[in-house]
């Protein structure tokens, strides 16, 4: 086995970058979602939705 494996990109890795990275553009008056701290709010929401289906064995990490 090697460290480098070609797999489908994991969603969490994607979200690390797409919700916390990338250029943030504010300035469009109609849609200012950049004002919302998406990462914290939505990852927490996601984690709780995931937890409802699969209880986490690592509760203490949350």
């Amino acid at each position, binding site marked *: 086995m*090697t*460290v*480098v494996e070609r797999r489908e*990109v*994991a*969603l*969490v*890795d*994607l*979200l*690390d*970058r*797409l*919700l*916390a*990275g*990338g*250029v*943030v*553009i504010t*300035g*469009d008056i*109609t*849609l*200012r*979602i*950049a004002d*919302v701290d*998406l990462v914290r709010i*939505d*990852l927490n*929401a*996601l*984690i709780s*939705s*995931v*937890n409802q289906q*699969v209880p*986490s*064995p*690592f509760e203490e*990490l*949350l």
Partner: protein
Amino acid sequence: MTTGLRYVYAVCRPFGTPLQAELRGVGGAPPALLHHHGLVAVVSTVPEADFCEEALKAHLEDLDWLAATARAHQGVVDALTTVTTPLPLRLATVFRDDSAVRMMIEAREEDFGRLLDRLHGRVEWGVKVYLEPEPEPAEPEPAATARPASGRDYLRRRRQQSHAQEEKWQQAERFARSLHERLAERAENFRMHPPQNSALSKVPGRNVLNAAYLVPRAHSEEFVELVDRTKDEAPGIRVELTGPWAAYSFSGEESGAEPSVESGEGR
């Protein structure tokens, strides 16, 4: 009547190669290139019903929607990285129409130029370090599974276990720090992401390092080999490499010449 909004994936310098004809973006629409002021915004049309502020807030809590949108966004940015060095925008950056996109380009022209210069020919590599889960609970003594003789025995045993766990955790942190130092030396910049929650990542072990490194394409092979060589260094520790990514983690707001690197653990 259905109205469309403009979803912007990335901003690039003009590039000669056309996008693959079969490339599809968010919601299945083909991305188009919008040239303005010597820059190119890569855009596609998305339904207003899905991307107005209210709908978007609701959608972002829907894991399936978020996953599909994130993958479509990444698909376009990935395609761009094969022909140029794109400056990726944050997920769900949406404008009313092309003229709003043009105005945004004009307003941010200098930022874009500076970032595109800095990122030109660079890619991002993700490196994560995990403390592998124990195959069996750490029970050094063979008799340990027997009922503790007394409350005091029980407490002592619990203390030993948590001590052993703490020791492993510290080992993993030491390894992660030393690996990070070596990688940061080969990278032009790095960024610490918060460790991933295993409930969300669904991978075994405890994530102790979740870092991104900005590396010139030309030095990527060397960087990957360096990560690869570490795999047998520490038992009980797993290293995962992802990439190459467009430089998402290095496209953030950074006023001044020096990118901020103070986030996450110290060097």
